[in-house]
């Protein structure tokens, strides 16, 4: 059954990539998308029957954006799933580690004060990434006591550091008195894939997210044991502290890469793990790949809606994911209570 879900979702993902590239303010026929992509990807010979602008829309603008959406969705989904297992709390999300608030502070500093240290166009992402890594390191240091990182301490440290950094971000906005800057920080906080382009950042995101999905799938059984409890994990030969620390590094890296590329897109990392578990059960070897595929598909379509709904204006993608995610979460919570009672 899990295999059927994975195969089915893979097919849907492929279709979604094509559809996500075709749909937008300017519609491109599906066949045309396939032709253009085939031409660039496999250097298919033959007459170029499409216009240069169409080629540019498909290949330069939309395809990298759709790929980034897929990568961001998958990364957030599996990170959320890993964190929910690590802290044994179904309401944990990828931003628990302070990564998003750290990234936001970094991005706000970059936008408002133009910390252009010769990093060029990647300054925003770079600054967000540095902020994210710094924040999660801080969370880890605060959560760690006498060499131990327990799930409760991690949860509390994440919340505390998150609030503190939010205050810093708010202060930066307040202190800058640039309305335009405040608006772009706002836009960034809500998430956007508008910066997507072929190049190093996209490649890094793809590699890191694929790595995270692979590692979390392979370590699925260990994750299962940790999700039951620390003593259980140890009794089954999985040292809980060391394993959790390793997972933290992996997840922080994955979320930092994703957030610095696309901003703090909410709800995907919270809701998708629940959907995946509902589909194929809680065992992580099966649930992680399914969550990755679901997250990728969800974010591709959320981005399509973000681009199309008020075209040519773009809506921040975080608004779309929240509108879709919040009711989903409510339904899940109700179901959860029903089964627990």
């Amino acid at each position, binding site marked *: 059954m899990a295999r059927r879900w994975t195969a089915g979702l893979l097919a849907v993902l492929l279709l979604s990539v094509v559809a996500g590239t075709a749909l937008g303010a300017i519609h491109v026929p599906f066949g045309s998308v396939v032709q253009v992509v085939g031409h660039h990807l496999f250097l298919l010979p033959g007459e170029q029957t499409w216009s240069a602008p169409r080629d540019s829309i498909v290949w330069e603008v939309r395809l990298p954006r759709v790929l980034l959406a897929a990568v961001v969705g998958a990364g957030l989904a599996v990170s959320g799933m890993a964190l929910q297992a690590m802290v044994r709390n179904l309401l944990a999300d990828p931003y628990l580690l302070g990564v998003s608030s750290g990234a936001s502070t970094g991005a706000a500093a970059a936008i408002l004060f133009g910390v252009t240290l010769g990093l060029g166009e990647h300054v925003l992402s770079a600054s967000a990434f540095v902020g994210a890594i710094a924040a999660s390191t801080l969370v880890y240091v605060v959560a760690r006591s006498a060499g131990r990182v327990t799930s409760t301490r991690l949860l509390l440290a994440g919340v505390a550091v998150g609030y503190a950094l939010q205050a810093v971000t708010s202060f930066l906005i307040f202190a800058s008195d640039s309305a335009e800057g405040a608006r772009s920080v706002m836009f960034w906080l809500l998430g956007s894939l508008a910066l997507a382009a072929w190049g190093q950042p996209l490649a890094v995101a793809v590699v890191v997210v694929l790595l995270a999905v692979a590692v979390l799938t392979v370590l699925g*059984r260990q994750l299962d044991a940790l*999700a039951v409890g620390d003593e259980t994990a*140890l*009794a*089954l*030969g999985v040292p809980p502290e060391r394993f959790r620390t390793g997972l933290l590094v992996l997840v922080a890296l994955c979320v930092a890469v994703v957030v610095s590329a696309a901003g703090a897109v909410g709800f995907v990392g919270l809701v998708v793990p629940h959907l995946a578990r509902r589909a194929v059960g809680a*065992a992580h070897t099966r649930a992680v790949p399914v969550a990755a595929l679901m997250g990728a598909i969800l974010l591709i379509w959320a981005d399509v809606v973000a681009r199309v709904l008020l075209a040519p204006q773009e809506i921040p993608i975080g608004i779309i994911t929240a509108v879709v995610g919040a009711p989903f979460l409510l339904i899940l919570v109700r179901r959860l209570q029903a089964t627990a009672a």
Partner: protein
Amino acid sequence: MIVAENLHFGYDARPVLHGVGLEARPGRVLGLLGPNGSGKTTALRMLYGSLRPARGRVTVGGRPLATLRPREVAQQIAVVVQESDADTMLTVREMVTLGRLPRLGTFQRTGPADRHAVDAALARVGATHLAARAYAELSGGERQRVLVARALAQEADFLLLDEPTNHLDIRYQHEVLGLVRDVATSAVVVLHDLNLAARYCDDLVLLDRGRVAAAGPPGLVLDPDLLERVYGIGVTRTEAAGHPQLLFHPLAANPERISA
């Protein structure tokens, strides 16, 4: 054989164990007894490396526990832990399959041998019919049986149990311990109930404020005078079905004691 020698331990400044030693011998069920706070669970946790002794050492099959990796320990020792009721979404079968974890390589998938071990363990504890159920939906007794099944699926030499009869009604208490007797070649079990210990254990270690007050066969350890001193309650000993059984009464209300 698991041997603990001269274990010392304290939480923060409060000492819990002062030089506890014990031996879990193959083919025997060892009961760890003692009042609340006497260090039973602390001592048990040291036997599988969940706690490290401040002084003293534990050896498993002659090798110091401290030199074994957690995975190697789990291959020899299976533990039924008292985890607060986890709201896991795993099914019973998945829960029992976790017992195969120490036997599987990182990239190895569960194979026919693992499925067979899981089936056998479920059958052994009479939980085959529960396999597809959600673990979280089971009753306390059913959960305990499933956890024993997981430990069995581990195919370890030793079985360690921390108060496995907690929260179980009287029938399930006997059922679970009967199961342990039946299935385990060698076991160490922390128990509160002295009569259950008398019935199901081959050897007993009685702890009192972090020291071994007595060790040996139940007939020897369950001495009324000794128990009275350790637990601070009147004890009368009788016998049932060939095992010593104990009756308890508040000290002042013990007429024999008062007259003596």
